[in-house]
């Protein structure tokens, strides 16, 4: 397969996947249908997918290498709800000062979502920018110019009691692609042999009289 596909698989299986544990989840495609509950707190989702690529115009013959400048999107999604000390709020006998402190300490969903996405950006950047991952899971020399080009954070969106927040990180690199061809299908053998079993009437060939 092309090198960009191998890199994407390596990003998930060898680089981000082993580090996910209980901090986030990573998948290799854009998940269209997801609920705010599915990415709540440490179920934060990281989607890694090939976004675009450029090839140098001068390359391109069947036998030469093609330099592929590829871009991967690392999309991060989190959701959070508001938190407070419910044991105090539910306690009618709690003192006024304790109740006031509990109310003052409650954290809004948007604040928690912002903290969660910042933490996730921190984690992902540190993994991807690590020098030990410079080859992006490939053999040494395959990948060049690995770079994290930019990070963009989206706007919080209310989803009932949850607030969701997304961020995007752009990872670029360069690798050489070689045309390997599509795997051929086995040919169906066509039996085109002609078999003449018998010539009862002596009608074939040339008959030589007297021979």
């Amino acid at each position, binding site marked *: 397969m092309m090198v960009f596909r191998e890199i994407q698989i390596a990003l998930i299986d060898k680089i981000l996947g082993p580090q996910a544990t209980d901090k986030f989840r990573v998948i290799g495609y854009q998940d269209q249908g997801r609920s705010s509950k599915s990415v709540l707190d440490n179920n934060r989702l990281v989607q890694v997918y090939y976004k675009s690529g450029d090839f140098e115009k001068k390359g391109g013959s069947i036998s030469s290498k093609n330099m592929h400048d590829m871009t991967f999107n690392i999309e991060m999604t989190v959701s959070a*709800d*508001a*938190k*407070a*000390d*419910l*044991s105090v*709020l*539910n306690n*009618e006998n*709690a*003192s*006024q*000062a*304790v*109740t*006031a*402190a*509990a*109310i*003052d*300490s*409650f*954290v*809004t*969903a948007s604040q928690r979502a912002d903290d969660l996405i910042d933490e996730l950006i921190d984690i992902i950047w540190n993994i991807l920018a690590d020098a030990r991952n410079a080859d992006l899971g490939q053999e040494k020399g395959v990948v060049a110019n690995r770079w994290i080009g930019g990070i963009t954070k989206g706007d919080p*969106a*209310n*989803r*009932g*009691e949850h607030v969701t927040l997304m961020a995007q990180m752009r990872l670029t690199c360069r690798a050489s692609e070689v045309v390997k061809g599509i795997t051929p299908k086995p040919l169906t053998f066509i039996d085109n042999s002609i078999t003449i079993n018998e010539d009862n009437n002596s009608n074939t060939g040339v008959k030589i009289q007297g021979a």
Partner: protein
Amino acid sequence: MANLRQLAEKDLKTTLESDWKLPVILISPDGIRQTKSKNDPEEDLGGQVMYETLEIDVETGLPMVSDEPVVSLRVSSLDRVPLPNEKWAVLMPTSPVEGAPMEEFVLQKPVVGSYSLGFIRLHLTRVTQS
């Protein structure tokens, strides 16, 4: 004779606090709980509770039902009126069924009020244990 505004405010007892009333407990930023109405200390504090709100999804532009309760309260029944940017906690029943347990909510958005007409709307969000 009362003017129309005064009559409209009195009518809130019928529209918000009679047949459609659900009990509500307000906890102010000072930690003070209000469980009874200022208008009548014998009566529980309460108002009209809408458990879901209809919003427009900003990504698709389509209407969606959001699990975000709204409580409408008569201003004159409150010991202290919530103001924007204040942190308040609200306890109210989880459903309109009699005897339903109370659930904790906090103010999500600034108070939307029609002070001139005598009622305020509190947009709430559920809160979980920290």
